[in-house]
């Protein structure tokens, strides 16, 4: 019974609120960098409330079940990941065998839901957006999985997140070693692609594809997609912070240090977003399967040596 309470609390409420705060920080910093005033504080929440009040239009030849259920698939996937990560961070003894693999598996669901939604709408622009997203997922999943091996190796060949947190609490954080730095950079780039931010926002390229894979969505279905993106803005840097910086502590001076680490990841994401143009999908594929994969292989080799 209490699992449902945890699911609603950690899965939806915490991730939505913190995700909305991070999205506002992102828009405000971008506006300030361009010498403008940005939107007010509650803008992401107001966008969601407005979208829930609009009409829902389904295109005529689209398959209704896939069209309406793909946002929900993505939302449920990210909510499960958020619940798991929050619970294991607060109570590291609740970890179970193989929960790292569960988390990696459920993290594919948001990208999959966008692909399904784009293919289910009967629109050629949406199918181009979906096919580009498929190529992008193929590109970044490979170095992502390779770089996740580094924390597994360094914390004694364990695939339980609670034991990775325990290892980092006992020794230093994984990001302070050479292989840790390299895999930190690799996972930062993969997260940039997973979140759909410049330079990898190929699937939702606004001026080129008129909205990309979500072009036919309106009203509450679009609101669920935007909510999913907000929650991903919280969950993915949180995942990085758990794997490489030891998670979020709540007591003592460790609280300030871990919060600064979390903010550092967000600042890096915003800086990369504001200083780069958008890549084409073949350039992104070559980038991820070329330098980034080689970097992650070097990181894994260094981790086996103990560096």
């Amino acid at each position, binding site marked *: 019974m209490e699992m449902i309470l945890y699911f609603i609390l950690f899965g939806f409420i915490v991730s939505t609120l913190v995700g909305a705060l991070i999205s506002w920080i992102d828009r405000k910093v971008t506006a300030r960098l361009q010498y403008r*005033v940005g*939107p007010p504080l509650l*803008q992401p929440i107001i*966008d969601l409330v407005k979208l829930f009040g609009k009409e829902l239009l389904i295109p005529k030849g689209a398959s209704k079940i896939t069209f309406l259920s793909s946002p929900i698939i993505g939302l449920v996937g990210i909510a499960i990941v958020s619940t798991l990560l929050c619970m294991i961070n607060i109570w590291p003894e609740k970890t179970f065998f193989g929960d790292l693999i569960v988390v990696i598996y459920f993290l594919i669901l948001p990208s999959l839901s966008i692909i399904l939604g784009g293919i289910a709408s009967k629109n050629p622009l949406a199918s181009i957006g979906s096919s580009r997203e498929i190529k992008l997922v193929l590109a970044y999943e490979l170095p992502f999985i390779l770089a996740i091996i580094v924390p597994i190796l360094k914390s004694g060949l364990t695939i339980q997140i609670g034991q990775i947190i325990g290892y980092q609490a006992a020794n230093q954080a994984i990001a302070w070693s050479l292989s840790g730095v390299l895999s930190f950079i690799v996972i930062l780039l993969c997260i940039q692609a997973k979140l759909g931010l410049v330079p990898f926002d190929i699937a939702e390229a606004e*001026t080129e594809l008129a909205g990309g894979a979500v072009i036919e969505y309106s009203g509450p279905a679009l609101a669920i997609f935007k909510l999913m993106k907000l929650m991903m803005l919280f969950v993915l840097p949180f995942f990085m912070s758990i794997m490489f910086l030891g998670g979020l502590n709540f007591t003592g001076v460790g609280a300030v240090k871990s919060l600064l680490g979390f903010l550092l990841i967000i600042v890096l994401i915003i800086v990369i977003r504001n200083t780069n143009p958008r890549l084409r999908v073949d350039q992104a594929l070559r980038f991820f399967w070329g330098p980034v994969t080689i970097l992650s292989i070097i990181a894994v080799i260094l981790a086996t040596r103990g560096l």
Partner: protein
Amino acid sequence: MSIKLKALLKSPWVFHLSTGSCNNCDIELLDCLTPRFDIERFGMVLIGSIKHADVLVCTGSVTRKCIPRIKEVYELAPRPIIVVAIGECSLSRGMFIDSYNCPVPLDKIIPVDVYVPGCPPKPEAIIAGVTKAIEKIRKSIKEKK
């Protein structure tokens, strides 16, 4: 005022449709995004697909080829929607009133809520026009009560 309408007025997403204009009004509309007249502080964003939009901004005198397409775009927009006509050409076709290719003005094809005159109107005029639309909706809600 209901919370739906409050949220609509605080975050209107703008879709830009040009029906055969000389592009001056389009440039002035894009000027509104620049740092001097920043409209993102009101929550307005220039959006790519009509199905995500709350405000439909039309520029240009309406050519014959464009009339069925304007009707289709207006039907695709999810309600509630506000239509803004910008520039002399969409109000009354301006200097092209005797042209062979522009038979009717814009408000004979789709219902228009706000008219912004000027050739081209300054960005301050465009922002004032959209603000007047918001005020008009607020007043009409109050009068209904």
